[in-house]
């Protein structure tokens, strides 16, 4: 089985782009990734494209061939949809295709346009990641679902909104130098605690913003990279995916995410590593509590211990295990269908040494990305390693 290398990454700025369409955003990210990789367009064999709610947001279904066109490529293109993990599965399937020997070069990534919708419409669009009969009809929203998990976490394991506020503060600090991030504004614990409630106990500054953006990666086989003399020091050495019941009320525990545990176990096994080997991690922190569920599900903390990690300084940029040096979904932004690809792009930059926060992890050799769908009914985990 061949190894898979990241030959090029492309990101748009994450934020509000009222004047731009999704096709324009993805075209930019794809061209950037193509140019960085140095791969000639005719060598790209197919495109795996992640998108969640384009049919609602832009009245545009069948987006994948459109995105191939915008990337200047004439090759098969397929859309992958797994709610907020859409790009994660798109990348994972590209990795599997290259490993199988079916292709040497793939373009993978995703895009979402969200800020053109009203708050009510974006709330409804995101809510479709939940169970329509039993959750959406009961008024469950995306922040509301995480609020239910957050309260269940506090009840079951302890912790406080103040603990979580430290996660928001940390991720805003990390986003400050990141040119692609939506927010370049430091915040304080008091600001997080005093922000208006969206869905109690989730406040406005516990939540990721509504974001437009795109991500793209050029993935190549080891053999192709060597034959073409590509400068591609970062490899994807592990990939895993886990699933769970869609509706929260069908889960055994409301504040534990076995989909993440399953995805992580598969990815670690695939890469031949364990949680102890991880130097840096990008996790799916759509809400502050989501970062806690992620670092526990990935095996870095026991249930109940992850909530205080940022407050204790363990997951800050200078801590033992920096989490979300990109700024995370919380401060970098969360264009849902682009996020999984963006995490791998950011991790690639961190490990290569060309991310503005690379200095915090200059000796890092192994990074992990974690992308979750809905209330973690799906999760995708990747292990990335760099040649040193």
């Amino acid at each position, binding site marked *: 089985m061949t190894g898979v290398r990241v030959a090029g990454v492309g990101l748009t700025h994450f934020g509000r782009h009222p004047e731009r369409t999704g096709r324009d955003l993805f075209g930019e990210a794809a061209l950037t990734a193509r140019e960085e990789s140095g791969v000639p367009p005719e060598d790209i064999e197919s495109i795996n494209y992640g998108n969640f709610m384009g049919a609602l947001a832009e009245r545009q279904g069948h987006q994948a061939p459109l995105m191939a066109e915008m990337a200047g490529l004439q090759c098969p293109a397929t859309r992958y949809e797994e709610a907020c993990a859409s790009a994660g599965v798109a990348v994972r399937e590209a990795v599997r295709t290259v490993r199988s020997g079916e292709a040497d070069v793939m373009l993978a990534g995703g895009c979402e346009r969200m800020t053109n919708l009203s708050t009510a419409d974006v709330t409804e669009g995101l809510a479709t990641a939940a169970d329509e009969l039993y959750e*959406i*009809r*009961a008024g469950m929203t995306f922040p*509301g679902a995480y*609020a239910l998990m957050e309260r269940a976490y506090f009840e079951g394991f302890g912790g406080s909104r103040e603990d979580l506020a430290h996660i928001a503060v940390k991720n805003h600090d990390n986003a400050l130098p990141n040119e692609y991030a939506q927010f370049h504004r430091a915040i304080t614990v008091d600001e997080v605690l005093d922000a208006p409630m969206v*869905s109690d106990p989730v406040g406005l500054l516990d939540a990721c913003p509504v974001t437009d953006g795109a991500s793209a990666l050029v993935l190549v086989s080891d053999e192709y990279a060597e034959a073409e003399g590509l400068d591609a020091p970062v490899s994807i050495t592990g990939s895993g995916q886990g699933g769970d019941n869609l509706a929260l009320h069908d889960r055994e525990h409301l504040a534990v995410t076995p989909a993440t545990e399953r995805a992580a176990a598969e990815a670690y096994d695939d890469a031949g590593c364990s949680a102890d080997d991880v130097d840096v991690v990008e996790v799916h922190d759509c809400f502050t509590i989501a970062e806690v569920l992620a670092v526990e599900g990935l095996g870095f903390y026991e249930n109940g211990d992850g909530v205080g990690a940022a407050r204790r300084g363990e997951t800050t940029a200078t801590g033992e295990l920096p989490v979300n040096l990109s700024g995370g979904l919380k401060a970098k932004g969360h264009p849902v269908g682009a996020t999984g690809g963006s995490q791998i792009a950011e991790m690639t930059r961190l490990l290569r040494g060309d991310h503005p926060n690379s200095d915090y992890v200059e000796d890092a050799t192994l990074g992990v990305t974690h992308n979750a769908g809905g209330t973690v009914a799906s999760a995708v985990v990747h292990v990335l390693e760099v040649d040193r």
Partner: protein
Amino acid sequence: MTDAGYDEWLDAVGDGEGYYLECPNGHGSLPPRRVCPHCGSTELDHTDLSATGTIETFTICYVGGPDFTDEEPYATAIADFGNVRLTGVVRGSDPENVTVGMPVEAGVGTNRTTDEDLLILRVR
């Protein structure tokens, strides 16, 4: 819009004859189902839903979707009914007074925005 399995279930809950689906291994789930979502058994029998449940977690939603604009703020809760949990909008209490552990019973109400039937958890 009709939803076979779900509509009958909601009507039954509204009539005070709520039920859930139970497999031979004792797993509970809600219709429509052809198999148990926990073990895959295809032998699912109707079992009476407990008359009362207990709120396990809840949120007070200040920003709902377009179908809930006339409800804001509203409390949505997950309540434990023994072998199965229900997710519903809490009625019979101000959202600010809802607590974990509060006893509730399942019923059917009307969504004030859409006029459609809605599963509610009524505070006892």
